[in-house]
């Protein structure tokens, strides 16, 4: 019996077709990209300066993971914790749930990495891969939540304050943030995911297409419809609270 506190290792980490060129051929796994990939589009980044910075970070993470899995994991975590946590926070709308989702996503990532060979790690695009894991966990949590009775008003309050943040900072940041974070909850799941990944997590559209496993055109229309809807919600709810 394997002693772990939850599910067996390697069960639910999705494989994503994020490799470049030849690596894409040896990506196994039942959870690999369902459609044909946008993998080719992602290689080389989306062009421009941010893409190059992302590539440098990506190379550092992959190099560290190739050396030692545990040291590499620490680099992976430090590089992408902000992206993963921000995404989890703005998707779920709740601090505690975001912590659960982000912790679980990183843990599953580690467990998947334990079973990956050097080739597979070399072909990894870690940010898209991590966010794909997170997105699957979030969709699962939505499904589970739909089967539970609706939460009470207290639990339902979006974005409770960060317990580690001073109250004044929270107040200042939430001046605009709280309202906007609340509005995000009013978007359909697909639009919310696309808007959060594009404008909160700041991913290029090509990478969002990989994470959400959708064509780029669909991603763009989710984003623009999401933004349009946010504007409408903003106006109908009468501006700032």
């Amino acid at each position, binding site marked *: *019996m*394997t*002693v*772990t*506190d939850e599910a067996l*290792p390697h069960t639910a980490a999705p494989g994503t077709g994020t490799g470049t060129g030849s690596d894409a051929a040896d990506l196994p796994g039942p959870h690999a990209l369902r459609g044909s990939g946008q993998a080719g589009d992602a290689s080389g980044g*989306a062009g*421009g300066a*941010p893409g190059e910075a992302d590539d440098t970070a990506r190379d550092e993470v992959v190099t560290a993971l190739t050396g030692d*899995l*545990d*040291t590499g*994991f*620490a680099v992976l*975590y430090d590089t992408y*914790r*902000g992206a*993963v*946590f*921000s995404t989890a*926070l*703005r998707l779920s709308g709740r601090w505690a749930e975001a*912590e659960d989702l*982000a*912790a679980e996503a*990183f*843990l599953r990532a*580690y*467990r998947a990495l*334990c079973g990956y060979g050097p080739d597979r790690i070399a072909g990894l695009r870690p940010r898209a891969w991590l966010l794909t894991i997170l997105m699957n966990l979030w969709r699962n949590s939505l499904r589970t939540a739909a089967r539970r009775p609706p939460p009470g008003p207290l639990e339902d309050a979006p974005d409770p304050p*960060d*317990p*580690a943040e001073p109250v004044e900072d929270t107040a200042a*940041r939430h001046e*605009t*943030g709280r309202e*906007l*974070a609340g509005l*995000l909850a009013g978007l359909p799941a697909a639009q919310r995911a696309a*808007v*959060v990944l*594009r*404008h*909160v*997590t*700041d991913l*290029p*559209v090509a990478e969002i297409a990989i994470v959400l496993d959708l064509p*780029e*055109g669909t991603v*763009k*229309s989710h*984003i*623009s419809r999401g*933004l*349009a809807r*946010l*504007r409408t919600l*903003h106006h109908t709810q009468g501006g700032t609270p």
Partner: protein
Amino acid sequence: MTRTDPVPDTSGPGLGSGDPLTAGLAGLAADAPAGLLDRIAARRVHVPGPLDDLQVAFTDHGIAYLRAGMDEQAFTTAFRARFARPLLPADRPPSGLVPALRTGRLGRLRLDLRGLSEFEAAVLRAAATIPRGQTRPYAWVARQAGRPKAVRAVGSALGRNPVPLLIPCHRVTRSDGAVGDYVFGGDAKERLLRAENVDLDEVAALAGRGMQLVGSDTTGIVCYPTCGDARRITPPHRRPFRNLAAARAAGYRPCLHCRPAQPEPA
């Protein structure tokens, strides 16, 4: 890629910086809270203790794993195989660990026993109650864990003890007087027990005569030979017994501290 997009700032970075909505969304990014990594990764540290080369892994739930005589690579590999969790170096041992290893008392030190089966956890809880300087047979642990016939399974569960020394599985010994197996080997077990002043020679001498228990003819109470109460019985009043049935037949009752058990017929 037909753009039906009415908003001009959805695709390229660098565009739409003047839009208050997208600026507001960008402001919703948040760094991960400081404690998040500790929910994911365990920490490892070298500690001094009664055995050489002790390494300990701990999580935010407590001490999860303790092993002796391994190098860092072997320890990390063993931890990964068992817990599938990242393991990073720690600056210092968690508070309370070093005193707990020195005194054998846990105090407020917490143990992370997630992932053990119910039976394994019950066995370890039972073993944890054996006082320093005393031993109990496997059958006693089986009874305390609620499965009196699962004596062999107790041996396996103790062999999988993730935190030896902290849960003193070395104090569980064979009823024939031998010390029995141990995670770190029988020799280490004997060394640990002698360091706790267990009189293994007396236990072996009694067992050699087929005697498992010692009673006092002044109190009429019968104990395991290493029980604190048994060790106070002066030699003229010590009465050895083969088992609890024999002691009961002689009018003795079992000690309420060490609770000697009647061996179950296998």
